[in-house]
């Protein structure tokens, strides 16, 4: 666990500045239609399997992408902290000394040295996401705020969503729900769709996997359900469960989540997505100099996921709301080159 990375700066005077780690256009996996997904940096959980390890820390982070480096040495020359060393493998970042000042990334001619985490002004961000308005309109899509946990930058999130609603854009928030109840007040009124993660129903296992218990997460979700029943925003609620081998991918967990949904969210859940584990993020961990316990974890085969989906359908929820995505369809035999390439795909 990396609990220290979760010490988040107070979300106060910065209500017109956000820290994002990515903006993905033509996003087809984060809600209805064609969407632009805005990824907020910083998360209140630290899931062991996290597919976006760069999303966890709220601070900008430095990473080095081997395939882009031309070995010019510029970065080492400009670093005021002497935190970069040439090694046989390329450039090593001495994270104990690096202050993330960004000087090396600014001077690196090939964007091999890169700061993850960019500050965005509200106006600029709204302008940026509205560029795809024509595609939102033609597809019934819109903008999704994800992360990380967008709720950690609640006042910016709130202002951002309000601006989008003013422009008549469909809004979605993809959230893990781990924050005080007041956070909900900041964004729910301007959110058309909530994509809510329930990862693990057992509180202790939840703590083991994510670093936090799930009591508050479930409380917040109950609140959302109750608001919907009373006719308040959001209009739609989707539940997402990452299906992770050796962790959440157990029948007991899926059945438990299903029973909880059936008991507490009656009729308000339009979709429950079981999202299969993938390992395309493997190199991201390497670049952040972090171990990943899922390094050699095999991908989830189709039949396992189908089995779990079946458990979900029989758990008491309306079976029609259960969907799944992302299982492997081939026996995995990736070459090294292939790993690098497919990983690059996720950082684009």
């Amino acid at each position: 666990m990396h609990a220290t990375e979760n010490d988040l700066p107070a979300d106060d005077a910065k209500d017109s500045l956000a820290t994002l780690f990515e903006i993905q256009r033509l996003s087809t996996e984060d809600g209805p239609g064609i969407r632009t997904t805005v990824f907020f940096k910083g998360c209140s959980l630290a899931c062991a399997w996290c597919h976006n390890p760069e999303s966890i820390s709220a601070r900008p982070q430095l990473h080095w992408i081997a395939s882009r480096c031309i070995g010019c040495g510029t970065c080492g020359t400009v670093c005021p902290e002497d935190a970069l060393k040439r090694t046989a493998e390329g450039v090593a970042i001495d994270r104990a000394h690096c202050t993330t000042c960004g000087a090396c990334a600014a001077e690196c001619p090939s964007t091999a040295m890169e700061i993850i985490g960019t500050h965005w002004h509200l106006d600029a961000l709204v302008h940026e996401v509205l560029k795809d308005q024509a595609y939102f309109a033609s597809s019934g899509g819109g903008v999704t705020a994800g992360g990380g946990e967008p709720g950690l930058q609640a006042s910016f999130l709130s202002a951002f969503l309000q601006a989008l609603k003013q422009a008549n854009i469909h809004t979605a928030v993809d959230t893990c729900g781990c924050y005080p109840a007041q956070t909900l007040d900041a964004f729910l009124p301007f959110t058309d769709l909530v994509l809510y993660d329930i990862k693990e129903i057992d509180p202790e296992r939840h703590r083991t996997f994510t670093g936090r218990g799930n009591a508050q997460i479930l409380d917040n979700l109950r609140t959302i359900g109750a608001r919907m029943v009373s006719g308040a925003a959001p209009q739609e609620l989707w539940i997402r469960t990452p299906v992770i081998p050796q962790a959440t991918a157990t029948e007991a967990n899926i059945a438990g989540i299903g029973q909880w949904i059936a008991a507490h969210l009656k009729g308000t859940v339009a979709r429950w997505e079981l999202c299969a584990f993938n390992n395309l993020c493997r190199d991201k961990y390497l670049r952040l100099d972090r171990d990943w316990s899922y390094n050699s974890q095999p991908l989830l085969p189709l039949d396992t996921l189908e089995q779990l989906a079946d458990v979900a359908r029989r758990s008491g929820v309306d079976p029609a709301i259960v969907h799944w995505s992302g299982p492997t369809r081939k026996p995995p035999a990736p070459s090294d080159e292939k790993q690098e390439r497919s990983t690059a795909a996720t950082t684009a």
Partner: protein
Amino acid sequence: MSTAVQHQAMPPLRTPRQLSPRIQWLRDYYFQGADRKWNNQFLAWSTGTPWDVQFNEMTFYIVPETYALLQTLRGSFRQAARDIALPDDFWTWSLPERRAWFVKEVMVHHVPREILPGDLLAGARFNLQTSLCLTEAEQKSFDTALLGRNGARARMKWFHDHGYGNAGATSGHLVPDHAMALKNGWRGIHADLSDRYDKLSQTDQEGPRGAQLRAMMTAATMPRELAAAYSTLCRRLANEASDQERRQELRRMATHLEHVPWEPPRTFWEAVQALWLNHMLIMSDENYPGPGVSFGRIDQYLLPYWETSLKEGMDREFGKEILKCFWVHCNTVYDAMIRNGRQGITAGFGQLITLSGLGPDGRDMTNDLTYAILEVIDDMSPILEPKPNVRLHRNSPTALMDKVVDMISDSQGAPFLLNFDERSMAGMMREAERAGCREWIRPDNVHDYAPVGCLENTMVGNDRSGTVDCNLNLLKAVELALTGGRDLLPFHDPMTGKTEPVTQAGPSTGDAAAFARWEQFWLAYSEQTAYIIRKCVDTYECSESARAVYFPTPYLSCLVRGCAEKGRDVTRGGAELNFTTLEAVTFATTVDSLLAIKYLVFDCQKCSMAELMAALRANWSGFEVLQAMARNKAPKYGRDDDEADAMARQVMDLWTDLTWQHRTTSTHRQFRPGMLSWNYWAGDGFVMAASADGRPRGQFLSNAICPSNGADIKGPTANANSVGKVLGGRAAEGTADWDDTFNCLPNGASHTITFHPAIIRDPAHQNKFKAFLKGYAENGGTCLQVNMLDPDMLRDAQQHPENYPHLLVRITGYNTYFTAIGKELQNEVIERVSHQGY
């Protein structure tokens, strides 16, 4: 949480399906290629004079790969040519009359005629190299114009060797008035010609107008006589046929051929038969098969015949069977040089058909024949010809969108190009305005445009078009602005081993190293752009003027409105709409180079102009850091970045405005801008010096209006938005070229986007993809090629070509078999494979 793009298992390679034994056999037989007993290779024919020449090399001036072969081809056709006995007074006739008679004589009396087993259409061999029919004096002066020290060939070669591009008066590339030819029949065309001839004054009858009309009248009887000869053949074959059903078919074909194309068709079968003969004879007339000889809105003008025949009991499947025969016939163009390599000289002939699209009053014109033809494409795919374009617009019906996306999902990418009506029609209206031809292109007929070749929009039946005649590397102007009008590197001729001294070719725009401000560089660039456009126009004039004198095409002239009225050949400016097109190549490389110069030298002062020039001269060798900055740090077009796209817009406005200022001197054809770029961006990457965007010599240039390879890191929507913006974007309703849409490239802009197959992986995603296309209609360009590729599959095909003989790849309407292209181009295709793949 973001859901990463998973590697998706691809559907197995597309194979044709639902083919009847008849079509299966014809298709398989076609793909036997050079092993076939029958083929449609060039047959050469001579007047028998010692000076006679068949090969019209000007048509190949836009195919740089053939420059080294021109002399050989000229000689070999001449050697192979069979003599034709001429009438006694042949040499007293005008040139158009000689050509008309000669082509007809060869087609009707000398070219062998065959009908393949099961084929439902007659008209097989048409690839000819017929005598140019010149007198000794004419041939001599033609040769001087072509081969003299300062002749067309030398100038065209200089233009290409020095990295400007290429230019030449090329055949084809237009949409003839097929609807009229079907409706009136050749009898009607002939009657009209003879009527016009009779009305000429005696002086006119004795002059060039009379000669032209007489030549056209001769040409107008060629289809009738050829059809009659095929009719006789059908009857003979019918008598020999043992199969009862086949005998019936051949008898029916014989009856059809007694009637069409001289008389208007009565049935769908007759209409397709007539259309095929009318089309194939254009290729005979021009001595060159099918480059962009396009069919236009085939689902519109064939519809009445389709409906009549269905009503009279034609089985819909049989109607499709007729079309499938038509498909096979179209592919035989590739036989022209079948013995010289797998697909002859070039693999892209571009006989285009146009489907669907807007009609009058904003009505959608999709009909049952549209769907039947899409089904034929689906069944026959993958196959190269004819190339379909489906016209989409904001209100295209859901059923059509569904079919389009189904077909894309089911193939290895779209088996057609998608043309977007609003943007395209805006371009047509712009050209009406700029060229002063509002009488021919109006709000009430602009919907009747159609693309030729790949995606080059023109009006139908009256537009000489001339797309692909001039292909200009805009990037040359950046090079000349850096050097003050001189080549950056001396030209080294690999044939002679000699290196030419660098000369002052362009205007002296001063020493760029002394420029203190970006604006000075822009000024120099503008001046050099004006120069290269003028140079292109002048180079083109050499072959355009020679063609106008020495290569009339009276048969084709019968099918282009305006020629009969004016009594002037289509090669002499007879068409109502007398355009020729300047196609800009290297657009994104040019924009990105300018952006890089501005960024590196002026805005961020990463290097001096002198240093940058040294780097380019050294092909970046020793300047790797600077090259990496140019590649990775400088802004790029294609990311929906307003500032970078503003530069792109400036480049676009400049060259298009300058282009409108020119006409050909000899034929008064108005130049208009387009961006088709064929495959020059590949080959010329080796000709042009390194560029400031970080590209070394030998790496491909950018293609048409597409962002530079690898630059579009923001995905398909950003890519499409950038394209739409540089074309002019949109405005409030009623204030733009067409309704709310601008378009500064009337001839169209070729745009390829390669999608990850995940975008169409299930019905929900297919709906999103459909929505993307609708969004493209709002924000994007005139024409989109959708590619859906899997890099692993392509790498495997690279390793094991034997397993992928039919794997088609498409680069802006340039369809080719993946295994038939070189490794570099293969790598390029692989690199483009996935949008998320950077």
